[in-house]
């Protein structure tokens, strides 16, 4: 493709600060991006295919010829990565394919399976309770993000992994830097290094006291590292992934969900009065808010036809689950928020072998957090106009920086 035709391609991700926090793309943007597989220009100057229809997204994410390995030529990066990216990513199984991915993922599937999450629901409920007590103690007006939405999932993942929550300022601030698309390669390098050093030191401390506690890291050390099945650097990478994914995504979902529900007071009241409906409501929130908005990234390792287009080996694809979740072929009136719809076909957790391993945990946290919030703060109101709220447009995980509330 020549430079002149390249510059005519639409840019991905689009820049529009006026968009509502509930709208992944405004109408004009949708005209440009939605529909059959289209070609876009990335910030790095490379081009990639944009895939946004529900059926195409599912087909692509389940196809073994699409790689998650960002060191492969043609991988559609949204920002330049440091040259050390491969070494930095050891153990980060979301960037691995096939058996290499499965080997690490399967060391965690039992930890996050539904019955284990049920077992830790009392811990989640207790953490929610404490965070809500903090919110009450802070008094109105308060920022719901910093008093509730962020500390709650952070505490839960810290407890499960065995990471001291006292260090939350450190890992929360670093996570944000890593998720920001504006972060320079040098800064990524530095920040990943800091987090890996921190987790490595934590793991080293745990290794000499394996009998003193039981948490996910200790179990992995005992059952996988000691027998020589898992390298310490790999465990560091797995811990890094779980720590970041375990708090950022859920925190952003809670903040946006509360903003949305306070605009639908009847739904908010329903959470309190009929908590058995909360699971369905959570699925609709996941569909409607779709916080991973810039897309999942893949590169083709063979020529594959998706949505009537031939994607050639070495070409990148950006998979827009946020738009697939608004596909009118699958969801009636997809731009409407409807907690009674059967939203279970949403792709907010991805699809294919990389589908979010923490989804039972995320679902339980969202359900318990929202039901308890509605019960304890039935008159909760947001004191700012949604358009005035500072949103994280430049982050890989969309969300609110703060949510001022009163009650």
């Amino acid at each position: 493709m020549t430079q002149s035709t390249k510059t005519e391609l639409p840019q991905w991700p689009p820049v529009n600060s006026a968009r509502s926090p509930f709208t992944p793309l405004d109408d004009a943007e949708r005209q440009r991006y939605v529909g059959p597989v289209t070609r876009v220009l990335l910030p790095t100057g490379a081009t990639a295919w944009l895939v946004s229809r529900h059926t195409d997204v599912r087909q692509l994410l389940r196809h073994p010829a699409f790689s998650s390995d960002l060191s492969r030529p043609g991988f559609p990066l949204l920002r330049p990565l440091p040259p050390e990216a491969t070494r930095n990513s050891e153990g980060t199984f979301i960037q691995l394919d096939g058996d290499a991915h499965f080997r690490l993922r399967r060391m965690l599937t039992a930890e996050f399976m539904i019955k284990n999450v049920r077992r830790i629901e009392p811990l989640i409920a207790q953490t929610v309770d404490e965070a809500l007590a903090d919110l009450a103690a802070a008094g109105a007006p308060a920022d719901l993000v910093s008093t509730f939405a962020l500390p709650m999932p952070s505490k839960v993942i810290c407890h499960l992994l065995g990471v001291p929550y006292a260090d939350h300022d450190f890992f929360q601030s670093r996570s944000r830097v890593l998720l920001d698309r504006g972060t320079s390669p040098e800064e990524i390098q530095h920040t990943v290094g800091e987090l890996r050093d921190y987790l490595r030191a934590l793991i080293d401390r745990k290794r000499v006291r394996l009998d003193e506690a039981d948490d996910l890291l200790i179990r992995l050390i005992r059952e996988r590292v000691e027998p020589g099945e898992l390298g310490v650097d790999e465990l560091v990478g797995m811990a890094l992934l779980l720590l970041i994914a375990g708090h950022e995504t859920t925190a952003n979902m809670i903040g946006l969900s509360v903003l949305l529900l306070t605009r639908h007071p009847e739904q908010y009241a329903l959470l309190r009065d009929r908590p058995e409906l909360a699971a369905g409501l959570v699925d609709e929130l996941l569909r409607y808010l779709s916080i991973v908005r810039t897309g999942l990234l893949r590169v083709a390792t063979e020529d594959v036809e998706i949505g009537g287009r031939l994607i050639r080996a070495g070409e990148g694809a950006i998979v827009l689950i946020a738009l697939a979740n608004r596909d009118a072929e699958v969801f009636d009136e997809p731009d409407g928020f409807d907690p009674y719809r059967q939203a279970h076909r949403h792709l907010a957790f991805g699809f294919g072998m990389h589908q979010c391993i923490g989804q039972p945990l995320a679902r339980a946290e969202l359900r318990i957090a929202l039901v308890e919030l509605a019960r304890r703060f039935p008159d909760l109101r947001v004191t700012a106009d949604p358009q005035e709220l500072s949103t994280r447009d430049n982050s890989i995980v969309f969300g609110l920086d703060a949510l001022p509330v009163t009650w």
Partner: protein
Amino acid sequence: MTPGPRADEGTTLRVAVDRARCCGSGNCVLAVPEVFEQDDADGLVLLRDPAPRAALRERLDRAVDLCPAGAIRVG
């Protein structure tokens, strides 16, 4: 068995899972807990009932649809 639209309620279906493909998402367990469970040892799918009643067809189809790994067959 009485003939008519409900005639298949007494019949059974055949369900098969491929543990080698399963990525442990648990979607099948949410959709049809009567038929699927997750193995305590590895979190991967286990069949509680390989021959469930035909009345579960709709939810079994949902499990097939929601399985991210394509690891479930219903016959």
